[in-house]
């Protein structure tokens, strides 16, 4: 980014948006910076540091958990506001991002918008059915499924920022689980699974399962969710879900992990993730 001529430090979202829309100076937002420092962009003249614009907040609003886009991964990982219910999935996913110094830099919004194949938070957002709030001069909210249908950066309009994520209040008896499979603890994921299950009298009332790191874009496993819905919550069901996912999903392979290996991982690891989500769902009810 040798083209950068200025830094700006807006104190509000509105001010940040106006700077980004300013036609006289080509601007790009920056927060944690771990993505921006690698940008090859040769035309950005101004970096707009959005970390002072009041977006580093976490609050509960009418039952929804609302997380500001510049909340750092380390703070998400340590937050007690995310509780022990399904939202704990966010803290779990955040605690697995890179290493401690990386978690002190990476922000929620950066991890979602600068989506990399191995980003950890997107699968959690899909499993929690989060709403992604985008703001330029207008404000719009997209479902996580819409947000990740293409690369989020291609979806943002001129001047638009992801300002917050709104996680709907999970109903009683809901639990979540998150699994990231890495060759070593600090390495990039070769398969990430996030699941949220709502249990009702021993059956699945609602299930959302998402994978990432083995697909170009993070995605929900709708077939598996349909198989789970209404099913008796037992190991047989979880095993069938694993078999179905391992058969059906088109996963990517590379030098770190072949397609076959990732399919094997998904088939083997999904049942355990579903079991853990179910145990937590039962815990959340009692």
């Amino acid at each position: 980014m040798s083209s950068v001529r200025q830094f700006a430090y807006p104190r509000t979202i509105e001010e940040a948006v106006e700077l980004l829309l300013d036609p006289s100076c080509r601007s790009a937002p920056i927060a944690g910076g771990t993505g921006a420092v690698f940008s090859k962009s040769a035309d950005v003249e101004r970096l707009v540091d959005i970390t002072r614009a009041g977006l580093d907040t976490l609050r509960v609003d009418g039952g929804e958990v609302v997380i500001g886009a510049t909340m750092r991964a380390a703070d998400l990982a340590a937050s007690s506001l995310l509780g022990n219910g399904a939202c704990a999935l966010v803290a779990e996913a955040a605690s697995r991002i890179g290493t401690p110094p990386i978690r002190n830099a990476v922000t929620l919004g950066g991890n979602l918008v600068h989506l990399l194949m191995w980003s950890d938070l997107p699968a959690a957002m899909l499993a929690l059915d989060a709403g992604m709030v985008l703001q330029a001069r207008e404000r719009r909210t997209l479902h996580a499924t819409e947000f990740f249908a293409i690369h989020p950066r291609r979806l943002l309009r001129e001047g638009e920022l992801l300002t917050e994520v709104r996680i709907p209040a999970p109903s009683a008896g809901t639990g979540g689980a998150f699994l990231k499979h890495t060759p070593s603890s600090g390495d990039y994921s070769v398969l990430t699974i996030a699941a949220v299950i709502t249990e009702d009298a021993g059956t699945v009332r609602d299930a959302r399962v998402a994978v990432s790191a083995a697909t170009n874009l993070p995605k929900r496993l709708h077939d598996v969710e349909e198989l789970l819905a209404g099913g008796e919550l037992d190991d047989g069901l979880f095993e069938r879900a694993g078999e179905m996912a391992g058969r059906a999903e088109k996963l990517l392979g590379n030098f770190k992990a072949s397609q076959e290996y990732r399919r094997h991982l998904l088939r083997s690891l999904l049942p355990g993730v579903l079991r853990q989500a179910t145990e937590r769902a039962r815990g959340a009810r009692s």
Partner: protein
Amino acid sequence: MRLELTLNEEAVAVEIEPGEKLPSVLRRLGMKGVRTACGQGHCGSCTILLDGRPVRSCLLFAGQVAGRSVTTIEALARGGALHPIQEAFLEESAVQCGFCTPGMILAAKALLDGNNSPSEEEIRESLSGNICRCTGYGSIVRAVKSAAQKLREERR
């Protein structure tokens, strides 16, 4: 552009290129303990404390630290006396080539500032972003344990 920050507890103002990364600015200010190795955020040798928390300075534009507090290894020794963590690294021979040491010690400092009796697991987790290619990690972990002990005794 002019950058103002608190560097090792002193207010500092410096002229920087807006697109400049933080390590080159800190080294220009004499903080040669900020080592640049991979430049990719993998190795941890450029670790600094930003508002008390360890971060990789190579992943920051200098402009991002405006108005914030940066601590480098140079802040630790006082009046010629080494910091207890530095002493412990010497005593435990946790230093061989020394390139990773400033980052290791700052990561350890951030841990011990908040927790003066960490478990081995907590120490290993806190240092997991810092790579050493000489001594191995056993002596480094021992040094942090020993430093924790020193700090506990100091505060008594």
